[in-house]
């Protein structure tokens, strides 16, 4: 290209650039159109600049810087206009702000049932203490539910187990989670440490504190030289982890055919902290002013049970405890009526959650 032609083209473009009034670009997109028009890949100025390389060297030296400075100047004007337009837009966004006090929609998250949460927490703690999960059927045999637990037919201890029987079948609905002990010992050689959470059934009239369906958690440890002291220590660690390190526990003699010695275990009342009275000397209703709440049954595995399940009672010793899950949840969350657990009212279910603190 001849220098004169190029010069003409350059002068023309430079004139156009000179004629452009930045304020004429009212929007960012209009501004961008201008930028593309001059500076785009095939823009007018770009084309002119591309033509530079065809000029003789002296001309290139002469006109090159001129053309470059024209581009720099245009870029500067565009940038300045862009900044002005942007800050103007920001300002208008600021002015047109939403009513931030409008309510947000609730997160569509469901909830786990408090029994599940409680059970999960209990098995988690016992899992950390080395206990594995075990389970068994809900429809049980008399052997697993009673006989093998040293509760023969016509034993008065059966009075405490109002049992549902199945029609035309020799089976029943398990009245506790203890048959899982039997099933596990029948098939697994000790040493073993298991925890068995699950449903159990009693033919009790349903009221605020009785449910025909309820959840229990059984824990069993069998090994060499396991003692009542081990039961005490295990329950203390378990309860304090679960309910707080200031929790105290108390053992009272009791009777279960499958443990000997047996104990009822009380924990210090969560509501009054074991004082037996609330603030201002008022009596605590949760523990009937005693400061203690009866929570679970426990004991050293009766050697008769080992014999029944085919383990050598001279070799093995162990302990077991069983705890009502709703009862614990009722105590922990101050739920007054066990029936609430089975009504599934959303206003009840919504209150339980895996809290993050």
């Amino acid at each position, binding site marked *: 290209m001849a220098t004169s032609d190029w010069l003409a083209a350059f002068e023309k473009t430079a004139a156009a650039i000179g004629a452009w009034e930045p304020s004429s670009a009212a929007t960012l997109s209009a501004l961008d159109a201008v930028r593309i028009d001059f500076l785009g890949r095939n823009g007018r100025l770009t084309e002119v600049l591309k033509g530079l390389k065809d000029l003789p060297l002296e001309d290139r030296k002469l006109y090159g810087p001129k053309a470059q400075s024209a581009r720099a100047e245009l870029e500067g004007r565009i940038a300045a206009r862009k900044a002005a337009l942007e800050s103007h837009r920001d300002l208008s966004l600021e002015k047109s702000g939403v009513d931030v006090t409008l309510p947000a929609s609730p997160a569509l998250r469901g909830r786990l049932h408090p029994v*599940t949460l409680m059970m999960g927490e209990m098995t988690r703690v016992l899992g950390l203490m*080395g206990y594995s999960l075990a389970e068994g059927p809900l429809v049980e045999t008399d052997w697993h539910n009673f006989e093998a637990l040293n509760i023969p037919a*016509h034993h008065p201890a059966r009075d405490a187990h109002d049992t549902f029987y199945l029609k035309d079948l020799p089976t029943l609905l398990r009245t506790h989670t203890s048959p899982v002990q039997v099933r596990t010992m029948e098939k697994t050689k000790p040493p073993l440490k298991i925890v068995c959470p699950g449903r159990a059934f009693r033919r009790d009239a349903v009221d605020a504190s009785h449910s025909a369906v309820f959840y229990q958690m059984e824990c069993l440890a069998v090994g060499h030289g396991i003692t009542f002291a081990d039961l005490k220590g295990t329950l203390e660690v378990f309860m304090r982890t679960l309910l707080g390190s200031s929790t105290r526990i108390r*053992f009272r003699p009791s009777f279960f055919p499958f443990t000997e010695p047996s104990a009822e275990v009380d924990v210090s009342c969560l509501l009054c902290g074991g004082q037996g009275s609330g603030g201002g000397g008022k009596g605590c209703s949760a523990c009937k002013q005693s400061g203690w709440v009866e929570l679970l049954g426990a004991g050293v595995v009766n050697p008769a049970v080992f014999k029944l399940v085919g383990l050598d009672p001279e070799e093995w010793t162990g302990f077991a405890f069983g705890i009502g899950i709703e009862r614990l949840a009722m105590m922990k969350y101050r739920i007054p009526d066990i029936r609430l657990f089975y009504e599934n009212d959303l206003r009840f279910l919504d209150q339980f959650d895996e809290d993050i603190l």
Partner: protein
Amino acid sequence: MKISFNWLKERVGVECGAIELADMLPRLGIGAESIESLGPAFTGVVTAEVLAKDKHPNADRLSLCQVSDGSRTYSVVCGAPNVAAGQKVPFARVGAVLPGGKLSKAKIRGVESEGMICSCKELSLEGDASGIMVLDPATKAGQDFAALLGGSDTILDVEITANRPDLLSHLGLARELSICLGLPLKERTEPAFKEDDSLSSFPVDIPSPGACPRYVGRLIEGVSVGESPDWLKTKLKAVGLRPINDVADITNYILLDSGQPLHAFDADLIEGGRIVVRFARAGEKLLALDGKEYPLTPECLVIADAVKPVAIAGVMGGEATAVTARTRRVFLESANFTPVTVRRGSQLLRLRSDASYRFERGTDVSAAEWASRSAASLIASLCGGSVRVSPALDVYPGRREPSPIRVTADRINSILGSEFPRDEVHRAIEAVSAQIRVEGDVLTALAPTWRSDLATSSDLAEEVARILGYDRIPSTVPSSALRPIEELRSLAVARKAGSRLAALGLHESLTYDFISEKSVSLLEVPEERWVRLANPLTEDWTVLRPSLIPGLLQSLRRNVERQAESVRLFESGKVYLRDASGVRERPHLAGILYGPLVPAHWRASKEKTGIFEAKTILADLLSGVPGLEWTTEGGNGGFAGENLLLPGSRVFIRNASGVLARLGTLHPKLARAWEVDREQPAVFELDLELLAEASSGPKVFQPPSPFPSSWRDLSVVIRDSVPYADLEAAIRGLRIAELDSVELVDLYAGKGVADGHRSLSLRFVFQLPDRTLKDAEVSAAADKILAELGKKFGAELRK
């Protein structure tokens, strides 16, 4: 069991009050259920004599009386019409505490009254409330009126565990308190009466000695049956028994005092003058003392005379031979029956009594003779002036020597994990034993006859712990070999699926395992597959649920009744179906979705929840099993009741091992039955056992392609009858390597689309892992797809 504190104090020297005692009982393993005060609810009331009655100066209906308590005379205003000079009355002095409050000095119509003459009502006593109480003229003035009425008592309701029948009496409890708390037992007065050797008991025959180890019989003549003396009636009433007549009351008294049940027969009504302890014969019946007739079976042990049963052994006597006012001769039974025999009979007949309660737990075989003597002695002294008592006939086929228990202190400590000194262990065992012998380290104990629960070293370990205190046992944790903790697959899948569903916006529910026959019928489960309860609690709870859906429907209904708008529930639990082997119990997971997707909200869409939400949820759940391959063909599989879902709106998800899940719109007839038909609930149900069995493939990271993808949106018009799944299958069938995904982005029918057709807008995303696709390649692939859809389904590009 009810324990009278006064009665207990006659047996053991209790120093403390009833409430303090009740506080100590739990440490001994005795539950203290409640404490109740009995007797006069007032103090400070004395007997007094009305010396004179004058008119009240300012009131016609009132009188002014002079009343003397023997030491002082009081001036008292009285409003009762029946008050008269010379009467003996209960008189409340100023300061007396009455059920209505504390009495203070008062001016009544201007005249000061220094007390009050009381009516029954004012003292909370039974009787005529129209005027003041008028006492026996022989009553001495100045006595404490509450004490005169028998004083007050405290009743402890204690809970005795099934292994301790020896505590089911005042004496038994006294003995325990003496052993464990070191309280002194009170001497028992030996029953004093002269046996008349010229009389002899009826002969007693025990053909089944295994059921009756001991029977002590005694004949008592010259009895005149009447009312019991006050002390006896007071005792029985205190523990909740109704006095009947003196003979019956004495047998009840001995039962509650010593724990030994007794029975008194009218000897003249015992035919043939002999007693047989035998099992009932088929067809025999007995009208029992409760007025009901019981058909007896050969499992029931009875007491019979020469002809007929006269009592159900250890449970209840017969009406025909009961002691009545006409009775002159009494045959007194003090026996021991084996626990299983009595329990079986009592359960068969559904008849329980204080006697059967004790027998089925085990009574003290050695107590029978003493109890017979005590009762005879009381009958002799209370029931008439010329009572003659035969010597006892003691038939004792079940005499047994107690078996010795050999233990060492080390053994006890090794069970308890304790370090009790040898001496303490020995002393504790000695306290509960009839006898001990120590040779070197070995202690040999003989249990008392009333402690049949003591047989092993474990039993003695419990006694040692109980007496020395559970709190003295240290706390340790078991040492055990470290093993990997395995999470049970079945429990893990239920737990994790639950968490995922909660994250997807569903609330976990727990419902009962029982449903009504009506509900199972609605599910159209064939009756031979129902698992019925033999002894349901209520009519609504007769069948074990074959599906979780009815329970969820019940919960849904409750929430809808309580104005819940949008309800999404799930449950994870067992379902039951009858099969050849008995009951097939399987873990299921089910959910129900109802109402708008989101509760009404200014930003929320008004979209209703339906089958597609159920699909979303199930697909997300199944995506939690990496590598799980599933299709949506197939029948109902193991799920109960095909017609739970609306035909035409149901999907079954199958993998290699069977039908994993089903979902769909709830059949409207079920929605109607549970009154949740305002919306169309969607449900899903999953067989967790099949899911847990499904093998999950290894999880390996797939690097996303670094090259850009290209996409094409194509809208095709196609006949309604072509299911989308067929369309997608046809596209996949082309195996176009560049095709990364197909998404249905819009669905339209109506204006511009021919009748019977719909327009599907599909977004195809093309991508290769190793290079950027050329535009021409993408277009060629899109054309290929269009051609295939045209060929297979007559689909055309929408204009």
